[in-house]
């Protein structure tokens, strides 16, 4: 069943949020390097990850963002973070994605499954720091499968559906721990739009089945028009998308048929150094409101901001919050 209500929406128009990751402070990057060389023990690293998490919670509060994230100070790669903790995976080695960027690509070598909660402790830690809601952040089953080698399952479908059951269990645990918002990132969902989109839809139904939390999926990197309007069948309340990096060109696509989900409106280019101005944010939201009703719009960056510096991130988010505030004011005038 596709959730249709917005069960726990915050009581403001155009709620602001972010996509998940923030830059790690230099002391944490250094600590992670040391820990990788076994020159720092796990407890010491953990203490610094907590310190950095708390710093980002405070910054988000100061910026007046409505729905917070923990910033993923303790995660490296978004797939390996899950694969490392689950049954069934080995890290096969480093594989190049472009330029000199390499990522540790897991291989599925046995049946996959959860040994226990993967993200719940960090969610609790972050949520205990703030009265504002913190989003639970998961990588979706299609993306975990697509960005891993499959040596075990006879078909991609079997692997994706088994992962969907595991990620559902994790989402249910997050909800029990108090998560009112749960995001399932699926940046690989449009890798094979013709062949596999039905599978992605089925998998998302399994992930979010029976949840009362407000659910979000984040999609980026690919050809979004190719999965429109099919993506409106994904069993989530909100689809979070990168609009800014293509100057809101996707709005043309969303004119017809109309966008029936809530949208997480990406208004900040996650890969540019320059901070957007509040005026740019205002213009982007205004253009969106010509196409999508205001009650369906959440405001966020295009993508995770971990590749930016802390200063760039804060400047971008400050512009996002200020621009959103100006539009809210116009709307209430």
């Amino acid at each position, binding site marked *: 069943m596709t959730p249709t209500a917005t069960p726990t929406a915050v009581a403001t128009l155009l709620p602001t949020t972010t996509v998940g990751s923030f830059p790690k402070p230099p002391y944490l990057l250094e600590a992670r390097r040391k820990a990788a060389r076994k020159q720092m023990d796990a407890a010491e690293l953990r203490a610094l990850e907590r310190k950095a998490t708390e710093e980002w919670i405070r910054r988000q509060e100061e910026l007046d963002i409505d729905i917070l994230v923990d910033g993923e100070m303790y995660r490296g790669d978004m797939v390996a973070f899950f694969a490392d903790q689950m049954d069934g995976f080995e890290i096969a*080695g*480093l594989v190049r994605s*472009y*330029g*000199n960027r390499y990522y540790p*690509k897991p291989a599925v070598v046995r049946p996959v499954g959860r040994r226990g909660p993967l993200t719940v402790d960090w969610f609790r830690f972050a949520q205990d720091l703030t009265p504002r809601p913190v989003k639970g952040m998961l990588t979706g089953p299609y993306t975990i499968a697509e960005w891993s*080698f*499959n040596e075990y399952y006879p078909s991609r479908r079997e692997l994706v559906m088994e992962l969907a059951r595991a990620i559902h269990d994790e989402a249910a645990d997050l909800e029990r721990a108090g998560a009112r918002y749960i995001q399932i990132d699926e940046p690989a969902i449009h890798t094979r739009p013709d062949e596999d989109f039905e599978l992605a839809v089925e998998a998302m139904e399994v992930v979010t089945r029976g949840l009362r939390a407000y659910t979000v999926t984040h999609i980026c990197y690919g050809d979004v028009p190719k999965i429109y309007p099919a993506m409106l069948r994904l069993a989530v309340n909100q689809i979070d998308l990168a609009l800014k990096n293509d100057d809101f060109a996707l709005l043309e696509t969303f004119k017809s048929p109309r966008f029936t989900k809530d949208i997480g409106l990406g208004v900040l280019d996650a890969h540019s150094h320059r901070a957007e101005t509040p005026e740019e944010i205002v213009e982007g939201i205004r253009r969106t409101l010509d196409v999508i009703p205001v009650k369906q719009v959440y405001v966020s960056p295009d993508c995770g901001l971990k590749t930016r510096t802390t200063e760039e991130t804060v400047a971008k988010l400050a512009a996002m919050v200020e621009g959103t505030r100006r539009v809210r004011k116009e709307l209430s005038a």
Partner: protein
Amino acid sequence: MHRVKTTVVGSYPKIPDPPAPGRWRSSVEKLQRGEITREDLHRVEDEVTADVLREQAEAGVDLVTDGQIRWDDGFTYFARGLAGFTINGLQRYFDTNVYYRQPVATGEVAWRAPITVDDYRFAVAHSARSVKPVVTGPFTLAVLSKDEFYGTLDQFVMSLAAALNKELKALAAAGAAVIQVDEPGLLARRDQWPLFRRASEALWDGVTATRALYTYFGHLEGLYPAMLELPVDVIGIDFVAAPRNWEILRKARFTKALGAGVLDARNTRLESPDDVAERARKAAEIAPAGTLAIGPSAGLEFLPRRVARRKLEALVAGVRLANGGAA
């Protein structure tokens, strides 16, 4: 007696498995930080290329490539060498998790000077095995680029075919006995077959080498047997991404030499020599020994280095079995 040969499709992992130092990767970082010069990086690329040629020879592959160590991707390497292109942002490369920078045609495309000839000469000088140079085909280059100049795919592809024809002639003049042109884009745009065919005539016109066309990532439905009319000597076919290519090839007698991609270049699961031998025998029913080379389904850079090497070892052991020798 003819025997079945072994070959590769092109790319090879640039860095060793950790904890061995990734010289190429750290050199690129140093270049970005201004600590070394571009010439320093080229020297490292030469060293890595020589390593990769040695690794293929040690595995026992008959016909090798230089591993495309100097390529960021198969598109910018040529677009930067030709006149008429600028380079845009990242795009997903077909259904892989690999990205390339998209070339943009902003002016008349033209061949200025050889792009791959020095690479080919270096490889020949450092290889114990025969080397084939690889060139990205005009059709795929056009399909994966953005056209801001020509206005029609037809004009864009035909201009690229004329430009790359000069590259192929330069490679043949440098002594390349076999030249491979990669055209996976054909399988993504099979509706453009008539254009592809015309471009092939222009591309290979006057090229005096064994002409190899490699396709991968898909099936040949709708293209076979028409493909047999192309002016090429070898056709490379991916039987892993599309097992139904075995069926499709039964529709007509195969009249070219065959490059049969039967080891999965995109999955770490290792084929056994027996698996490879069985597939080699199956391929020999399509193209007899003497006109058959067995290899991976695509370039091996989708895999970690250690796995790529093991795939080559399984390839050679399997083909030896198929040839009637001991593994």
